[in-house]
């Protein structure tokens, strides 16, 4: 008699350990995932920063081109996203630094994680409102 266990090459469906899909998303988990995603986004943003520096170093024409690209509406959208990603990762870093020191591991961990989500969004809006006011003046 053959079964999936004894037939060569046959694979039996085995239970897998629970993974992301079985958990109801909770704020600490989502912010942990976002910390990693924003970290990778920041690398892309850093490439843009170095690109701008290289353009500035190359001379007036390259500087004007880079300024036009970064100042276009698409450029601005990307810069706003980068600003949010940067602030999110910085606030997340502070939260992790507190946790690394063994503090804030009680129920306050939920409010700390919410602070990253709400704080990054509001600080990004605030910063760009200030930038637009400065540019308008």
């Amino acid at each position, binding site marked *: 008699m053959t079964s999936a266990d004894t037939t060569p090459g046959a694979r039996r469906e085995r239970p897998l350990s629970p993974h992301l899909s079985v958990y109801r998303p909770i704020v600490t988990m989502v912010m942990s995932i976002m910390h990693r995603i924003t970290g990778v986004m920041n690398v892309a943003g*850093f490439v843009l920063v170095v690109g701008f520096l290289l353009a500035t170093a190359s001379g*007036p024409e390259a500087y004007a081109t880079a300024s036009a690209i970064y100042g276009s509406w698409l450029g601005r959208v990307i810069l706003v996203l980068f600003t949010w990603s940067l602030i999110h990762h910085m606030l997340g870093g502070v939260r992790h630094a507190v946790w690394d020191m063994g503090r804030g591991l009680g129920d306050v961990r939920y409010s700390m994680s919410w602070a990253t989500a709400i704080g990054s969004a509001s600080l990004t809006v605030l910063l760009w409102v200030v930038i637009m006011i400065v540019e308008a003046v």
Partner: protein
Amino acid sequence: MRSPVDQKGHSLRPGHRTALKSIRYLGSAKDGTDHFIKQRMTALANFFLVIVLAFVAISVSGRSYDSAIGLLGQPLVAVPLALALISVSVHLKLGLQVVIEDYVPNEGLRLVLLLLNTFFAFAIGAAGLYAVLQIMFTGAVVDSPAAAVPGG
């Protein structure tokens, strides 16, 4: 007969191959808490440098070329900028390294990507530092009286 010893003279007898003091805190990767500590040291440095440079970025926006060169070339701007380029490059290298280690199960591909990650971090950091130095020297030329009077 003497029992075998390692380079530091510690006994290599079975059950006592390496002195505890030689391996303590190092773990299986042999670099101990090096990654953990560097990731957090550069995080702290980045935190302050990025806040300072955010003001510079806002101030540079919309400037003329000469004015931008003049601002970015100042030592008080260029030096923090150079420090940030180094610190951010180290931080992103360590961060992307963990992402690759977590999500790339194939060992060969993982090794290649880890190598490329290290190359990328050095390349982007070097490119940024080159640009900052170039801007500093250009700024010095733009600011000098000799440049204002051609041939003078």
